[in-house]
């Protein structure tokens, strides 16, 4: 007599839910849209991508990306990674949906307390990539490290560490 196992969700449904939630999370921040930052996802791993644009130049002689662009890009990568880590279990369980994120009050992003950027090389006029790692996430504080690179993953052009205050969850209902 064959036993009926519960069938796992079809993979495209799982992917669609994760991507729609990520897009809703990222899409509601005006600064991210203005800079043109996008995110790629593999499972729960995120890569932030900053496509090069002339307006991001800080030193026209070299030319090089503005240090403030690098700082902002790495901070975005860190905050989105941290928020993504916070909501991941709820996204998987269907407790957080893309529609929930349409309400900007629903899931507040952690607030940056401090952010320290280590400028290792000048940012070339190329696309930039960043991946963040949550080193510690407590109830109130989190510490996140982020690495930024351009053409070569092993040659970082900047890295940063930031501390964040977690926001009290404000769920609907």
């Amino acid at each position: 007599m064959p036993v009926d196992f519960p069938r796992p969700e079809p993979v495209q449904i799982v992917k669609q839910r994760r991507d729609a939630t990520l897009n809703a999370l990222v899409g509601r921040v005006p600064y991210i849209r203005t800079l043109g930052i996008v995110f790629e996802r593999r499972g729960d791993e995120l890569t932030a991508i900053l496509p090069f644009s002339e307006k991001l130049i800080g030193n026209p002689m070299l030319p090089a990306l503005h240090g403030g662009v690098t700082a902002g890009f790495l901070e975005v990568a860190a905050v989105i990674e941290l928020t993504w880590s916070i909501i991941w279990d709820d996204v998987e369980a269907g407790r957080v949906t893309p529609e929930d994120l349409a309400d900007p009050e629903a899931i507040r992003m952690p607030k940056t307390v401090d952010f320290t950027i280590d400028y290792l090389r000048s940012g070339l006029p190329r696309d930039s990539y960043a991946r963040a790692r949550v080193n510690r996430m407590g109830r109130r504080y989190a510490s996140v490290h982020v690495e930024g690179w351009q053409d070569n993953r092993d040659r970082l052009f900047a890295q940063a560490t930031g501390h964040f205050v977690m926001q009290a969850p404000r769920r609907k209902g």
Partner: protein
Amino acid sequence: MSDSSLENARALIAALPYAHALGLVLTDFGEGWAEMEMPYSADLAGDPATGVMHGGTVSALLDTTCGAAVMSHPDTGPTTATLDLRIDYMRPAVPGQTIRARADCVRVTRSIAFVRATTRDERDDPIAMATGAFTS
């Protein structure tokens, strides 16, 4: 600073595409210090719930003001690059208000300039402060 050197320095900052995109304006500078302003822009908000400008814009303002302070120091070369920058975000800026920054070179050696900077909004309350090491 004389009007003509402030005009020249303003033109230099305005020629930086990202400083131009953020609307950064050099308001004054002297030997080893600089003051700049950044207008509010809803397009650069970081928190959709409050409209507060993203920390990245404050980082850019602080970085640029620190760089201007280094370049205005008599013992440094014509250009500078940021080696490291720590930003402390003490409170959110009021949405709609211009943010002002002041940076001072604390010590300049043959290779490094140590710089501190703070930003305030129109309430004159500190928003963020920065500590940085720059090439001199």
